[in-house]
């Protein structure tokens, strides 16, 4: 058998050397280019709701199309309140004033002279999965969880800047303001700034994208996205929060008793299966890699458990290393689908021992009107025909 095949191969080589050629000639590919683009066959894009005011709204990362833990800058979720300003970095200024020893005006070049750090950090909008509180849930993981992304951010530790200006005794809050048309403003406890906040100018190896705050933004590791003020133009140190519209009227959690929680900053442990997930179709029975993303705004993800039988059994998923604090963690699990209808879900545990709650548990405490900071377990139903949909519980 082997010998016969060798003979055939020899005949083909000897007899066809001059006469035969490939069925079609090949054209040269595209030449070198100055700035890369993805393959035209890749279709994942940010999703956004139709709006009469597209300058104010959010766009969602296509998490189902993502690999590993990083989000391309071009697909990082957006949340703007008054459009994306077009800022010339040579003209941009950051002023730090208020309860400081030495008020300071810095150019972007000034800031780049300071010692820099880089850190891979997740960012999640306080309103991510907000649609899960109510009865109707997002049909895809992009729409239910896509206001979360993860990038490498580069900039200067806020502590360095605060030491440079000298914090006056009694200062306890940092009021941050953007240079967008609506001058987005948030108050952040000074202790967080001294702990791990970053004044960032770089994202994923290049300058921030305009929609991510070019040329300067805050990174507030693990805390709700709206505190990561973009296009940063001013920091005021104060002895009180300034009670801005976006920390009173918005980003506060209304409880069933009519009281609202305010300054609920950290995003709690959360995970979601991205394959298979809503809107996808599993082609048929067989072996698949079930995968998803997990994170916690309170620390490192320690473990992710997955159920593929509606919650009867939970298995520990394999976690991508290195697992970084306050960053996405990719989880993976070999999944043998028998072709029968089932429900799948993931559950994250972080280093504090906090376990991601079920939707019922969340609602039993907080009701359905809080709007923000939803981190319930996400269930997907896989139908016998392989179609995947969200499940309302």
């Amino acid at each position: 058998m082997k010998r016969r095949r060798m003979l055939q191969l020899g005949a083909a080589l000897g007899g066809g050397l001059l006469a035969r050629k490939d069925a079609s000639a090949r054209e040269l590919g595209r030449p070198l280019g100055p700035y890369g683009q993805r393959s035209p066959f890749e279709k994942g894009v940010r999703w956004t709701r139709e709006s009469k005011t597209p300058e104010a709204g959010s766009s969602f990362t296509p998490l189902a199309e993502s690999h590993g833990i990083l989000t391309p800058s071009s697909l990082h979720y957006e949340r703007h309140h008054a459009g994306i300003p077009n800022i010339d970095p040579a003209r941009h200024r950051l002023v730090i004033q208020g309860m400081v020893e030495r008020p300071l005006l810095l150019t972007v070049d000034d800031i780049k002279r300071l010692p820099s750090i880089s850190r891979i950090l997740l960012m999640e909008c306080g309103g991510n999965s907000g649609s899960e509180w109510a009865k109707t849930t997002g049909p895809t993981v992009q729409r239910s969880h896509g206001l979360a992304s993860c990038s490498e951010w580069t900039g200067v530790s806020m502590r360095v800047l605060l030491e440079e200006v000298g914090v006056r005794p009694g200062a306890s809050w940092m009021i941050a303001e953007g240079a967008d048309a609506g001058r987005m403003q948030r108050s952040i406890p000074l202790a967080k700034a001294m702990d791990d906040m970053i004044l960032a100018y770089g994202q994923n190896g290049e300058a921030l994208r305009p929609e991510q705050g070019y040329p300067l933004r805050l990174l507030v590791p693990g805390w709700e996205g709206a505190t990561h003020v973009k296009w940063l133009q001013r920091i005021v140190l104060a002895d009180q929060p300034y009670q801005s519209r976006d920390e009173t009227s918005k980003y506060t959690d209304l409880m069933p008793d009519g009281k609202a929680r305010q300054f609920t900053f950290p995003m709690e442990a959360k995970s979601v299966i991205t394959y298979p997930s809503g809107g996808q179709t599993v082609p048929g029975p067989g072996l698949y890699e079930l995968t998803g993303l997990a994170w916690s705004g309170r620390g490192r993800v320690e473990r992710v458990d997955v159920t593929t039988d509606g919650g009867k059994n939970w298995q520990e998923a394999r976690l991508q290393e290195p697992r970084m604090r306050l960053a996405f963690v990719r989880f993976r699990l070999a999944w043998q689908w028998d072709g029968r209808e089932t429900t799948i879900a993931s559950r994250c545990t972080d280093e504090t021992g906090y376990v991601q709650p079920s939707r019922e548990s969340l609602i039993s405490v907080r009701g359905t009107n809080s709007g923000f900071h939803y981190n319930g377990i996400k269930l997907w139903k896989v139908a016998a025909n392989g179609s995947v949909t969200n499940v309302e519980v």
Partner: protein
Amino acid sequence: MWRSKHGILALTMALVAGVALAQSPKYRVGRTPTDEDTRALGVMVAPDGTGLPAGSGTAIEGKAVFTTRCASCHGAKGEGGDGPPLVGGKGTLATATPKRTVGSYWPYATTVWDYVNRAMPFNQPGTLSHDEVYAVAAYVLFLNDIVEEKQVLNARSLPLIKMPNRDGFVSDPRPDVPVRRPQ
């Protein structure tokens, strides 16, 4: 005795200065902002009124401004349209369909002034004068039965207004949701 007290004060100040010295600038980048630099950034208002500029307005004056600059989005009486409603919702926060408006939800009147000044009108922020902002804030508060029609709002009177939901906010009690640990 008086002198020695002063001596202690001087010593204390020297120690404080020592702490400040430990925080003395290391990189010496940038420069001190001028008053003009700060003015160019605009007004930033604290809930105790810090930062509120000179100027004043009443709801009567505010109605005219509101009608031409705000009503196309928020409705003639703040009932809402393409923009969110600004009035109503009293008594709804603990119901299944809460309506969060300036009147029913916002805890500070200073926030109304600050937000109108920094972000409104949505498509033309920064075009209202300080007087107009006082007037619009007065009108929105008047529509919510919080101020009288002729009440003058200025840097002194605005922070004194107690909003209906001033005591409606609590601090973060999380973690608050009981969960079963994984097996």
